[in-house]
């Protein structure tokens, strides 16, 4: 019996409508560049749609898409065409959202950029995308325990990086605990 998670969508539109947002979001976090994320998302869905017949429903469709995205991202990264433009490129949009939550995210993004790729990927899948450790392990192609230890290591490093009293981190983006400098740093953008 096909559950909704394992069901094959009828059309490309349906596939994209159901999973487009999360895959795009995942790609965006990996690439840290909107245009590259669009490219990556496009590749993922074209490949997925063409290869939908090969989807064996052993995992959820979302996990399958994540896995495709992760593989394409690895290829993209190894090709050396990775942009290093920050995720928050949207801040120069006409009406920037300067809420504390967004600033926290900005600080987190900067800190994440300093993690090694394995830690970053595991963290994004589990903490940001909300995948189970088992699903993340499937996407990454590593044992579940490895995912768990990577997430733990990522959180530990992030905690240190985001510590406002640490001082020696290069604060390209402000942390919420430094209200005096927040506006200046945002202005810098």
């Amino acid at each position, binding site marked *: 019996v096909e559950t909704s998670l394992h069901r094959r969508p009828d059309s490309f539109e349906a596939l994209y409508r159901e999973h487009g947002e999360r895959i795009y979001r995942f790609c965006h976090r990996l690439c840290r560049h909107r245009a590259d994320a669009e490219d990556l998302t496009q590749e993922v869905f074209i490949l997925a749609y063409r290869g939908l017949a090969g989807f064996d429903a052993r995992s959820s469709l979302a996990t399958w898409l994540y896995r495709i995205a992760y593989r394409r991202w690895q290829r993209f990264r190894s090709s050396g065409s990775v942009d290093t433009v920050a995720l928050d490129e949207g801040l120069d949009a006409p009406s920037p959202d300067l809420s504390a939550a967004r600033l926290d*995210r900005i600080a987190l993004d900067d800190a994440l950029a300093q993690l090694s790729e394995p830690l970053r990927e595991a*963290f994004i899948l589990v*903490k940001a995308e909300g995948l189970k450790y088992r699903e993340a392990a499937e996407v990454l192609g590593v044992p579940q325990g490895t995912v768990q230890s990577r997430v733990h290591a990522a959180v530990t490093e992030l*905690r240190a990086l985001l510590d406002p009293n640490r001082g020696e981190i290069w604060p390209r983006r402000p942390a919420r605990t430094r209200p005096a400098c927040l506006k200046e740093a945002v202005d*810098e953008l």
Partner: protein
Amino acid sequence: MSCDRVSEALNAWLDGEVGLLAAARIRRHLRRCAACAEYARAAQAISRAARSWRGEGPPRALESRMAAALDSAPAALLDQAEALFAGTPSPVRPAARPRGRRLAAMAGIVAAGAAAATAVVFLTPPAPEGSSRTPPQVAAALPAPSIASASLPETASGGREEHPDASGDPQPQHRSAQRWVRPTLGGYSRAKTPPLEDTAYLDGRDSDLRQFWVDAGRGAAGLIGEIERQLITPKDDFVRLPAPRLADSAAGGAALKDAVDQYNREASVVDTRLSRRVTLQLKAASLEELCAALQVQAAVRLHAGRGVADEKVTVLVKDLPARDVMRGVARLFGYYWGRNGEGGSYSYELVQDLRSRLVEEELRNSDANAALLALDAEMERYRPLLGLTPEQLRSRVAAASGPEKARLQGLLEHGGWGGLQAYSRLSPAERLALRSGEEIRFSLDAENPDRRLPAVWKRPLLQSWNQKVSLGTTNGELFWNGTTPVADVPGAVPVVTLRMNRSEAGQLNLQAGLNVTIQASEMEWKSRGTAMSLAVGRSPSVAKPDNGAANAALKGRPPFNRVISLAPKPAYRTRADYEAGRDKDFTGVTSAEVWEALHHESGLNVIADFYTRLHPHTAFRMERVSLFDALCRAGETLGVRWKKDGDALLCRSTGYFWDKVKEVPKRQLVRWQQAARPPDGLPLQDLLEMGMLSDAQLDSLVVAEGVVYGWGIEEYALVTPPGRLRSQVRFVAALAPEQRRKLFSPEALLFGDLNFAQQQEFLRMNPWVHDPNLQLRPELLAQTRLNALYAPAGVYWWAPRDPNGSLQVRDVMLTDRSAEKLLEAARRIDAAAGPHQIQRSEGDLLLHGRIGDLLKFGRSRTHAFVNLIGPR
């Protein structure tokens, strides 16, 4: 449960992925263990922040673009999809998509261009016979550029095309893969001409396109072309005659015919006087001097136009017709000789036309752009370092070696880190300003938010300089040689500067500076800076001239096969001579000495441009080499291309279009050199004249070295880098005579006596007046009294010393031509003054003043100070 086990399981627990028993154990542990509880709180906060990302979605246009891409995706994609999980996927390129606003804007431009193109087509004359398309049809058949086709599909009549790649496989059309088809007048030919890149179309590089869209259809062009065909080339081919001038609406009118006939009569004249043979030995002469010398020997009136009179040339010719010299000079510089007067008494004027000037400007622009691109590419190497913490950067330094290590060390030890970060955040306007030579300054309290450093940058900035200070002393020398790192000094204020130095031909140097101001005592602030070169961009003009290849046909042929020895005679003092204290037996030569030696050895006539550049004479010493090889080696060292032209050798600097804007006229150098002779030294008026030279002239260190050491005009160093007095000299130069008199007298010049522009300039020179800590109110600023002291090179000077012997240049500085008289005067102020305190000036200007009873400030060649002098 131990802390280690808990911390490992904590994230799984927070994510709801542990069993009930384990969860209970973790909760119990957290109640007892503050450290783990703290970790859990932090992990929870991080998870919350990560989850807050979930609101972002893809742009709406992505779905439709993807659907379109899916329709046009080649069948090969299916294979890739199938191969994906087999682990053997092949590359696939995405369909075109706009990349941010920049491409969206470009799409707009292209769309607008397409519309404009259509309009032009309707205005162009009908296509010639043989063309199967009328112009409007041509426009309709144009393939739309990929950028437009991506976002504006309705403009693309041709739709998306697939171009086979190198392997022959069809590829989805990418944004840069689309190519225009080169047009010909009257139509486009897809088959006969190679495709043209979009960029070539957009930047107007393709002359056919330009001609097609811009030039065609101008009614007068045909008539002018017809007239030009009737004009003959002047027999004296280095002469340019004024074109016929008339106003006649009838193309075949009598007036037109008369004008053409008159021009042709003039053009057929050969001035026999120019056949007189001349012998010239002019080294680094101005063109005006050349004309004067040539005039004497040829007995023909010659002079150089005002725009070119100061250009310098070396002419070493023996028994050569004056005509050949004039032709050689015209060809070398790209100028022409204008002929005036009547037959038998013609006079000639050497001038540069607008076209030639524009060509030079274009050369400078393209050269500068090439250097800029090279510099930007160099800066790209830093991009991976931008997000690194200082620790990470330090670990990189430890792991690096060679030049890479030095480059990274500069970031951490010489203040380059701040400059690097600032450069990566420059706005387009700031980049433009930087490119135009402006110094971009970033500080913690800048009024302009774009130039304000975030407060959190302060410590890392200070950490990026290994300067140490000694707190508790006001002696500058002791203060800056202490043991406390500036990063540990409370109240230290960093300022970051960026400057793009283009002092030398075809070379851009991006310099990052870090200046730190520290309050040394209640009454005194100390300021010192460091700088490093972040990147250097070199343009093609500094490339080696490769004369061997260019003149390969001459190798082995007489006279170039003649064996010679070369030993140019040194004529200039170099910096090395100066530092070694040599007063004679100098070692410097210029290109003129090299050409002179070659001319002397080979008898070859030489006409060469001249730009001030000193070389050690040993660089040109050659023993028994062929003339060809000697010329090639000399050309490589001098940066000169040479070419045989008739009976003369023409030699042109590869970067002449840069060199000529940096050169200082010889007439001024001669005057300054004569005026600077002891005992009086260079008069102030001449120093002020130096300050009024252009920045391009004053920025050149190569020229400055020639002027200061070669010509012995030491004061020139005041207005060239690294001297920091150019603004001060210009400020003084801009004063009215009465203002200047007050400035150099005890009477002093009041701030209120300055006009608005002068006041603005004063404030620009002294940015510290804006320091909010000083709280300088306008009425206080109005009490500013300005004074200046000028000590030419060779004059002796004395200033008071503080108790520990350190120099205290303040508002007392005595000067005198006689060291003995100066010592007497000094002892009247300070009885302890001794002969060792009397110093010979290398040329200095002290511009100083006081603001009420609050502040004393000043700047000289060696000192800069701002001190409180009373209670605030």
